[in-house]
């Protein structure tokens, strides 16, 4: 029995606790953000329209939980004895020497999600329509985060990780494609509208009557 116990605890975990915490927070953030994107896209769609207030609350809570998980993901890396990153390495793109492209992608995704998410509380100052157009780029930030996790994540090749991600990311990508398809249809049916000129801006066009 003792031999079995020694076999199971083959690796000393203590020195890696910060690393494990960061990985777990990153995985949680990816799952929560995927759910948040799903809910956000459902809000704008015609599905579940009657439950829109519930969806809005869920979207907000999921977004805040994502940001909290991302902060834990970044800050716990500061305590990692192997990477030993500085605050700049985890907060400023292109500064870290470790897998610079993927790391920078994650940092940009975090800042974009934070700004586009938290700007909700200043939307009246920004202008609701303008904020709504800007908020569509949150989906792009989520895709950057997804690429960051698949490109740099330690567990990216693991079956459990891929299954977990596929479970939430595939529906989100499907909803995003549906939304893009719908907005393209709207754009082609009303080509005179100047406000929906760029394809990025047209992602997720909503009728003005449902604007808050």
């Amino acid at each position, binding site marked *: 029995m003792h031999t079995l116990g020694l*076999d*199971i*605890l*083959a*690796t*000393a*975990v*203590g*020195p*890696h606790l910060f*690393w*494990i*915490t960061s*990985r*777990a*927070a990153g*995985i*949680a953030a990816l*799952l*929560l953000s995927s759910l948040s994107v799903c809910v956000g896209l459902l809000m704008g769609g015609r599905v579940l329209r009657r439950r829109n*207030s*519930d969806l809005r*609350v*869920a979207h907000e*809570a*999921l977004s805040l*939980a994502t940001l*909290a*998980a991302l902060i*834990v993901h970044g800050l716990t890396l500061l305590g990692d*004895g*192997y990477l030993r990153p500085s605050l700049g390495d985890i907060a400023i793109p292109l500064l870290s*020497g*470790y*897998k610079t492209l*993927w790391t920078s992608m994650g940092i940009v995704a975090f800042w974009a999600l934070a700004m586009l998410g938290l700007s909700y509380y200043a939307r009246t100052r920004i202008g609701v329509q303008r904020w709504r157009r800007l908020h569509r780029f949150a989906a792009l930030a989520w895709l950057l985060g997804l690429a960051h996790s*698949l*490109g*740099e*994540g*330690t*567990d*990216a*090749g*693991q079956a*459990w990780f891929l299954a977990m991600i596929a479970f939430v990311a595939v529906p989100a990508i499907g909803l995003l494609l549906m939304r893009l398809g719908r907005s393209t249809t709207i754009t082609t049916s009303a080509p005179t509208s100047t406000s929906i000129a760029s394809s990025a801006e047209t992602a997720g066009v909503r009728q003005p009557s449902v604007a808050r």
Partner: protein
Amino acid sequence: MSASAPTSRRHEAKALAASRRDALLRRARRIRRTVAALAATLFATAFLIVYVQLASGHDPALVANAAKRRAASTNTTESEAASSDSSAGARQSSSGSESSSASEEASSGNSAVTTSQS
């Protein structure tokens, strides 16, 4: 009598509005609690999976590093292999390209792992 009827109707309407508002707030609070519980559960589950994976010697980064060390040790002399034993604690990513800092650390003495992969 005629004045009290609209007043009571107004009170009823206000009570109805208040109850609906309360129900809405209750539902919002319940959703927020559910999301917080979900986030905590997701984090705990991910932590547990990674912890067990690492503790059992199946962590992708550490296993890749151990395999690399084994391959390196077969190509070196016995004395070089003995000195490389002390580099067990270093890790590298299992995916993507390896950074120079990772390979440098892999050959430095930063021991924390006694992996069971053999």
